[in-house]
């Protein structure tokens, strides 16, 4: 399976390295608009082609392309890849696009191409969240009644407003909060935004924190708290407290605890959930998601989460911003 990666920042390097370690995948080309990055890539990789624009990828007879550029470029790049028939199968780092309108259009293009499509919501491949999903499907805590979710990082913690740091062009909802929104949709299928508050803390034009209230079917309600200005979060973290008719589940990146109304409780750490992979880079979930995409392409399967499911995240983020005013 011949693959190219577009956008050679940290996520591009990570996915490209993992793909190169998956025996069924052949890393055929890398694409980046930066002259300096291309110059270094050419020195690093003698056997991999390096190009400066997406249309030049057409010469490599590609099976799949990974898009790991800044989010604003996902839509135009994916559109070019589809309309010029450069590759039928696409993996796009989260979020699918900058807004729901773009996402919807990409869903239509993906459907017409007939290939496999996937968005990099890697937390779906974390063993703790997978265990939570299984327990919820088994109704281990009965019917869900409510949830509280958070997504925190210290990326902009301690930075003064107006500092030259913290000038991200992307708000915290698409940068980090999207993981919690995607997981909430994975657990509950549909959500509606009831109330929302977003605010810039150190950034000038985008939000650094958001508080959202959701409702779902059957009277389920939920809350989401997102911020990148919280202390002591060396690594970004996402977590949920989910209440059900028979108990609660508390889950985050490292552990899962289930307490039942009967008094019984169970706890699982990553250690208990067979958290191993064939090649480990960054976190095991990155290998799992790339391997899942490759296998889906090779076996004509469908990948999860696909564009349709991921577009719902963009729709909800748009709704949050509208509600927040």
């Amino acid at each position, binding site marked *: 399976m011949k693959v190219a990666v577009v956008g050679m*920042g940290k996520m591009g390097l990570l996915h490209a390295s993992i793909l190169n370690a998956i025996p069924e995948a052949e890393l055929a080309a890398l694409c980046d608009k930066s002259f300096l990055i291309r110059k270094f890539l050419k020195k690093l990789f003698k056997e991999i082609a390096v190009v400066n624009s997406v249309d030049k990828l057409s010469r490599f007879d590609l099976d799949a392309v990974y898009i790991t550029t800044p989010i604003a470029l996902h839509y135009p790049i994916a559109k070019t890849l589809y309309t010029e028939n450069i590759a039928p199968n696409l993996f796009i780092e989260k979020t699918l696009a900058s807004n729901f309108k773009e996402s919807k259009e990409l869903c239509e293009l993906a459907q017409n191409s007939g290939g496999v499509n996937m968005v990099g919501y890697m937390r779906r491949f974390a063993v703790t969240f997978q265990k939570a999903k299984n327990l919820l499907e088994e109704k281990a805590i009965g019917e869900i009644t409510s949830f509280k979710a958070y997504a925190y990082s210290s990326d902009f913690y301690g930075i003064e407003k107006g500092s030259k740091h913290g000038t991200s062009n992307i708000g915290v909802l698409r940068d980090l909060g999207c993981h919690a929104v995607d997981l909430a949709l994975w657990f509950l299928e549909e959500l509606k935004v009831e109330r929302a508050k977003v605010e810039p803390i150190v950034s000038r034009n985008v939000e650094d924190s958001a508080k959202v209230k959701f409702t779902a079917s059957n009277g389920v309600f939920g809350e989401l708290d997102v911020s990148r200005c919280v202390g002591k979060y060396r690594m970004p973290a996402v977590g949920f407290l989910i209440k059900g008719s028979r108990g609660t589940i508390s889950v985050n990146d490292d552990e899962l605890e289930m307490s039942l109304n009967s008094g019984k409780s169970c706890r699982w750490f990553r250690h208990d959930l067979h*958290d191993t992979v064939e090649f*480990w880079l960054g976190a095991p979930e990155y290998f799992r998601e790339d391997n899942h995409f490759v296998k889906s392409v090779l076996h004509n399967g469908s990948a999860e989460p696909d564009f349709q499911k991921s577009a719902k995240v963009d729709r909800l983020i748009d709704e949050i911003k509208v509600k927040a005013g």
Partner: protein
Amino acid sequence: MGVEEKAFLVGDNPFHGISHLSQERSRIRGDTPTNPEYAAKLIQISLENGANGFMFSVSEKTLSILNFLKKNGDINRLSLYAIIPYAYEYVRLASKVGGVPGLAKKVVKQIAFSGNFNAVALGLKGVLKADLGSLVKTYLAYEISRIRSSAGKQAELNSVILHQLVTDMCLGFNLSWIFRLYVDWMLKAGLKPGFNTGNFALLVKKFKEWEISLKDIVIAAPFNKIGFQMVPSKEECEKTLAELPKPNVLAISILAAGYLKPEEAIDYIATLPNIKGVAVGVSKEKHARETFKLLNEKLGRT
């Protein structure tokens, strides 16, 4: 023939507030010793109970710990194993300063203002010619100069270990020349080249393929009773370990991030061949005393 002394190293994860078992619990308890002066005290207690080295990622925090160790004289009783670059800090920085190009600019600025003129000249050549080899050497020289300036020239810098994220990314890309360049440069500098990896079995397999001598290097890799973070499997890692030409593995994550009790964890390590030493993080004075006493009892110095 003398038997090499086992390395019992204090690991620095708790000093950065890291718990691989549960970040959330660690945050709530707030019990990680992130104050450099207190961290230096924990190292001192560890030394009194049998530790003989410190394994650390090079960051402002650990450089400050080295400063304290220098001031109180403990630095001369320690063998230093430095991990570079402190990749997670750079990843975080990249998010703040506009991705990889922004990060590169910041690092270049740091090196330029470091006053290390050889490194600056080599780096300039690297940038002008897009010569990655020169840039890697520049960066190594810069990091080593930071360590030496904090620890003092008398400190024994035993090994400089390439961070797991960088080692494993290069491994994924099959960049044999980077590994060769690193080994050659470190050996010329009189330092033991080291590699921290989450893919121990693959690293050893590739080094054999690339004919990079496994005798000249150290490898820091997870080894624990429950196979946590042992990729692709505990069995494969154990088999690869047994096939090494000499004891050159520093076992890390031996407590599986606090999941295992020290006694059972160390009993497992004692069954393994080719272990050069272990690195264990300690967050309390009691932990420091008990852990290193136990390591000496069970694994011995020789």
